[in-house]
């Protein structure tokens, strides 16, 4: 069962990455039938106020906005308060050399 769920998950990830994203697939100059469907989608964009839309989408990386800001950085909203808690620190203790080495070694093995 575990294997099955994991294989399904992997299919999902592949789908997430490659499945959608129609608009990004290359269209050579020769094939022209693509145009119409993309026009539909841009119709709703006309309605919304420009400034507003831009501001929100830049945070969310909305795939339908083709003019999203080009930025590789993930705005990682780490919860600062959380990381001051001991519990949270314990959860990654073994990722440090000060932690339990045998546990860390096992971690490596299981995943391979």
């Amino acid at each position, binding site marked *: 069962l575990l294997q099955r769920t994991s294989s399904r998950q992997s299919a999902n990830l592949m789908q997430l990455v490659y499945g959608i994203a129609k608009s990004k697939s*290359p269209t050579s100059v020769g094939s022209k039938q693509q145009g119409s469907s993309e026009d539909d989608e841009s119709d709703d964009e006309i309605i919304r106020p420009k400034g507003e839309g831009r501001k929100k989408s830049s945070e969310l990386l909305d795939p339908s906005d083709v003019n999203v800001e*080009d930025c590789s950085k993930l705005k990682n909203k*780490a919860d*600062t308060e959380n990381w001051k808690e001991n519990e949270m620190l314990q959860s990654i203790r073994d990722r440090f050399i000060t932690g339990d080495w045998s546990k860390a070694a096992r971690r490596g093995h299981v995943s391979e």
Partner: protein
Amino acid sequence: MGKTNYMRLKGSQNLRLRLLLSTLSSTPILIEDIRHEDTWPGVRPHEVSLLRLFEKVCDDCVVEINETGTKLKYKPGIVVGGKHFVHDCGVSRSIGFFLEPLIVLALFGKKPLTIRLKEGLGLKIESRGAPPLGGGEVVLTVPTVHNSLTAVTWIDEGMVKRIRGVSFSTRVSSQFEHAMIYSARGIFNRLLPDVHIFTDHRAGPQTGKSPGFGISLVAETTSGCFISVDTAVSHGREEETGDLGDDEKKELIPPEDVGEQMAAALLEEIKQGGVVDSTHQGLLFLLCALCPPDISKVRVGKLSPYAIETLRHIRDFLGVTFAIKPDPTTETVILKCMGSGVKNLSRKIS
């Protein structure tokens, strides 16, 4: 003149990736609808500057932009590289914006590249500058790949053995840096004693034109991984697109909070358990895909949206599809791909 077959794309998104992949795969691209519905349509100054940069380091590349700037034709040339380049990046984006694609591009150049990037925001950092006026300058030297990259199996993220960092400040008191470092150390020292954060306070002509400060933190692991985060705080530029709403000048975030936030962000990245941090996932995938036709296997944490975009563009330009498999026990993701076998064409011709 033969007819050119352009790959058609839309919008300004991922322009850097597109130009880079277009050049490396010798695929001309035609981008339409660049902010065509915006109040200020067309390409932005930093995007034009990026195109000029590509023109500078490449031979025979052709850039055409229409009158409104909403349509862009790019016909890639040969990456030449060389020394003594100077490029003015403008101030609408940081130098990092230009560095990211340039590094990969330069690897595939005919000659090693040395370039001085000016006016952006803070390799060898000659001077640092913060927005809105910038004034930073960096010198970048990139060697070339002689024949090809080498495929890797890189799935051991190791254990964090030390944390290093640099804080910087321009046109503010160096106390800002001490406050950031103090609060960041406060969090790290409960996990690890080996934490050193250096200061880089700039004065005089090296300090750029606007006040600002920031910090970058790197965790090094026993298996040689570098997990990093960084941030810079300054009075940002009001975007040309005209967000006129921001009435009063916002106060900068207090440095103590910046230190804590970045420490937390680094721990978050460490927790993800990849061999690179989420910002550099895309770069890693790109390099894997540019390898010779061997299998590369890498482990990353949760895929970042930019990394996903990168994967899609890699597929479109290089025809490389990754096998993506989650690893439930560690909550990481393993990616495997066969390199596209892109050679350093520029060198071969010479």
